[in-house]
């Protein structure tokens, strides 16, 4: 009789161990799944790459692009065809439902007055600019990522120095944040 009870007890224990192994395996699976299901947030790098390509278009070898300036000053046709001139494409994937995911803003300042912009233009989704104001107070992952860069460039023809400010905003929240 005692032997029978012992047999039943050991059966229960082995079922318990089996359940424990399943539980721990499920836990490990859950941990790996949770970790790897989070996408990498590369929006800051994307904004950096975008601002670098804009900077390369606006200035080369420390000299401002000749297409930006003409004899009368800043060239309006460059402003109107900025994306084509700089070979940029701001279209994004279908998952964003056709809503532009980028915003670019470029300001030119004369070195004598670094406060007042002489020439500026923008492209993309203007609604994204509100994210930058919010991000100044606290970082929210679901908001768009803003990157502001500035650099000097020379106009050798008129012997002028300009400060160029580039604001790049990338949203793409659905692909970079869970």
């Amino acid at each position, binding site marked *: 009789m005692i032997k029978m009870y012992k047999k039943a007890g050991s059966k229960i224990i082995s079922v*318990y161990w089996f359940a*424990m192994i399943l*539980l*721990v395996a499920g*836990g490990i699976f*859950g*941990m*790996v799944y*949770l*970790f*790897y*299901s*989070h*996408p*990498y*947030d*590369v929006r*800051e*790098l994307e904004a*950096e790459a975008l*601002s*670098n390509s804009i*900077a*390369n278009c606006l*200035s080369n*070898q*420390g*000299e401002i692009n000749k297409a930006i300036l003409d004899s009368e000053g800043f060239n309006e046709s460059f402003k109107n065809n900025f994306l084509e001139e700089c070979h940029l494409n701001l279209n994004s994937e279908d998952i964003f439902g056709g809503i532009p995911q980028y915003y670019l803003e470029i300001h030119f300042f004369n*070195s004598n007055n*670094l406060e007042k912009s002489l020439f500026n233009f923008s492209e993309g989704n203007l609604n994204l600019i509100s994210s930058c104001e919010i991000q100044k107070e606290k970082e929210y*992952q679901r908001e768009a990522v803003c990157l502001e*860069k*500035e*650099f*000097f*460039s*020379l106009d*050798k023809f008129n*012997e002028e*120095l300009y*400060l160029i400010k580039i604001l790049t905003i990338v949203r793409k929240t659905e692909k970079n944040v869970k």
Partner: protein
Amino acid sequence: MLNKRAQISEIMTWIVATLIIISILIIFLYASTILAQKTKIVQIKNLKLDSGKGTDLLEIKNLIAYESASNEDKQIIENWKEKNNEVS
């Protein structure tokens, strides 16, 4: 009677052990979520080349402009840089 008590205490031991295992698993699941949220943000400041220094293209552009600028413009760039360093 004594046999029953022994059985109950043995069952209690297993129940407590199970609860400890489950709670540890829950803590680890939670930790992996937090870790995924924090470590999967790729930031420029964290990217470093083998030399230990990150390269900033605009910094290079500034340097080139500085080298070809007149003395007056060089002073403007220096002042701007000083002001920027103070802010950061």
